[in-house]
């Protein structure tokens, strides 16, 4: 829901489970209580979210064991720590206090994940655009634009010399190079008629 995106800087994602109040500079008094109760869970991303993502890349008749999901969960947390550590070192070297998105992207590149950089930058640009759009455009126009963007986004899959291209979409556009920039033309352009069907019927009456 759009209403839940409050600000550009600090985004609040209300979680169902724990009473978390995310903010940039963490004051630990609230978090200590949560940490004592579900310390284990805090170390990892929720398994349901992880599960949903990984199901996108295996066939529908494939299954994943619980311990595999948990292992992947742990690996993701390790990935976050790994990248954050690198980004944090960079900030320290440059005597900056705040880790920003560009630092993360830099760290990801440095650690060898340069294939991610293209989609990440695209994602970040779109996110920034959308945050800006909210100030300018009304909801209806934005939703049309987003539909076009989303169709493009779903086509980016990894193609690391695999024979397997698992694509859950109906149109089989597979981008072999991750570094693509939008030069697409959406196939179903929404038509905006100068008159609505409602008004037409009124005329007939």
């Amino acid at each position, binding site marked *: 829901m*759009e209403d*839940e*995106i409050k*600000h550009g800087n600090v*985004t609040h*994602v*209300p*979680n169902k489970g724990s009473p*978390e*109040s*995310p903010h*940039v*500079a963490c004051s630990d008094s609230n978090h200590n209580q949560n940490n004592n109760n579900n310390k284990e869970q*805090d*170390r990892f*991303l*929720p398994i*349901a*979210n992880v599960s*949903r*993502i990984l199901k996108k*890349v*295996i066939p529908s008749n*494939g*299954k*994943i*064991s619980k*311990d*595999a999901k948990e*292992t*992947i969960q*742990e*690996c993701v947390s390790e*990935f*976050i*720590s*790994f990248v*954050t550590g690198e980004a*944090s070192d960079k900030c320290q070297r440059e005597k900056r206090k*705040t*880790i*920003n*998105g560009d630092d*993360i*992207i830099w760290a990801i590149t440095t650690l060898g994940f340069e294939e*991610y950089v293209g*989609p*990440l930058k695209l*994602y*970040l640009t779109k*996110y920034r655009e959308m945050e800006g759009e909210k100030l300018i455009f009304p909801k209806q126009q934005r939703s049309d634009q*987003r539909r076009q*963007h*989303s169709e493009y*986004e*779903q086509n980016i899959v*990894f193609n690391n010399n*695999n024979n*397997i291209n*698992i694509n859950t979409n109906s149109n089989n556009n597979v981008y072999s190079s991750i570094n693509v920039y939008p030069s697409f033309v959406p196939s179903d352009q929404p038509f905006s008629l100068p008159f609505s069907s409602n008004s037409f019927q009124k005329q007939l009456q």
Partner: protein
Amino acid sequence: MRQAGTYSGILSGGISGKTGPHLLPLARIKKIMKRSGEDVKMISGESPIVFSKACELFIKELTQRSWMVTMQGKRRTLNKEDVASAVMATDLFDFLVNLVSESGNSGEAPPPLELDTFTSS
């Protein structure tokens, strides 16, 4: 509601999709970032968002590689050993080697199929 569909490509939520626009909870990502070191104090608002996407890409890549191992074994259930094999086989995932080998295996490099710990579920 129409809005939920329009978000679905980029910023869609997962199971708890209605609670937020991103696939992964930003607050949890922030927590994990802070745990990574003493020096991590201030994090910009964009960082968890970048990570949200990066983690999604990472999960997809790791899963795809693991699934290839599963298929090589002519199985349809991806298990932990497949993940470990994929990690071992990929230079990029070297930082995970200790993580996958310490969870249950005593040796340095677990063999792709370990019959005593193999569970099919």
